[in-house]
């Protein structure tokens, strides 16, 4: 199953990922991204990939 990766150091807390995939991403009180799940289904992949791509800090990726 596709795995979610986040580079917490790169994250700037813009929150775009959460707008796109609130079931996969959130931010903590310091404004850093938190992964709500480690793996996603193949069916969810296009939507979550779209959300990852909307990160202005390039902090998110998805690994097969």
């Amino acid at each position, binding site marked *: 199953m596709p795995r979610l990766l986040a580079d917490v150091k790169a994250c700037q807390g813009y929150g775009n990922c959460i*707008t796109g995939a609130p079931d996969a991403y959130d931010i903590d009180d310091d404004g850093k991204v938190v992964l709500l799940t480690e793996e996603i289904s193949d069916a969810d992949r296009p939507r979550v990939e779209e959300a990852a791509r909307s990160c202005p800090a390039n902090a998110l990726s998805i690994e097969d």
Partner: protein
Amino acid sequence: MTDPRTVVVVGASVAGVRTAQSLRTEGFGGRIVLVGDEPDLPYDKPPLSKQFLTGCWSVERIALLTAEAAAAAEIELRLGVAAQRLDVADRQVVLIDGSTIDYDAAVLATGAAARPAPWSPTSGVHVLRSMADARALRDDLEVDRPVVIIGGGFIGAEVAATAHALGREVTVVDPLSAPIGRVVGREVGELFVDLHTRHGVTTKFGVGVESVEGEAGDLTVQLTDGSQLAAGTVVVGIGAVPNDGWLAGSGLLVDDGVVCDEHCRAVDAADVYAVGDVLRWFHPGHGEHVRVEHWTNAVESAAVVAHNIAHPEELRSHCPVEYVWSDQYDWKIQIVGRPVGATRHTLVGDLTSAHPRGAAVYADDSGDLRGAVAVNWPKALLVCRRAVGAGASFDDVVAQLDRLSAAGAAPA
């Protein structure tokens, strides 16, 4: 319906690149050609006034699409060649080198250009839109001479903060007394003025510029109040204009951007779409045509257009909540919605302490939430962003932020 065979995307910055990538994510199996006039591989613009201008971030760090990623997604790159015109009847993009590309669907992603400076001394006056602009400006900022910034909007304020961080003496000039007040309202706009002064940057707001004369290293800026400023470098940040001139003879309706329907489809050509800064579309939530110069709008419109090309039987509307960020000095600013139309606002938190963190929430007369401005508080912005999207009430959101503030108010 089958995929159109060839999609030509014109403009290879964030809106164009994300359209091409999203087409693949959406399962589009045809040919994708990405045309861009800049010779460099696609790069991202927001860092040009921030981390790239200070020199902290390299070209690699601001890349939007590497050659390998383009090849892997089967996106054909045609870089370093501008589109000269669009032939809607024959479905062709004509490039400046005389070659043509036939399309089944065209996506216009030519963005915007910096509004040119009305003054043109031989050298030393900069605008900031491209990587080439940022490199030229960075070279001049290395010279230890005062910097004058004309325009106190987002780009001007960011460049002021960056030039100040590089050790330059900086003055910002703008005919408005609180330039960012145009976006966040007058009162909160004043806080943005204080932000400059608190960091030792001089503001000349409410004053216009008469002329700029001289050359790089030795410029004189004449102001309308009769005073003069000496500068080594002048940066002009007075807005942007959409790159739609090349479409003049196309027959498309162009009016400060390419006029599109709610699906981001040109109103007079069903196989032509627009995305990003050049898009003027009918926003179903606002009930009017708008054009938005924000990064997130570029990405969101790209996703909508990619979907609509790949799945024409289930067209999506582009109905975003406006969102933009800006980094100025020790403020990470995030703005959601349309604060400027509001009639009242409440500030939660503190923006002027040594560790500023707070949010201003805006409402109209009916108590509906209009938008919010958050400083160094991403979590609050997220709450507001969701609330604006859901049409929540102002009082609700203020109460939520109060709770969040109390919960997060651990001693520093």
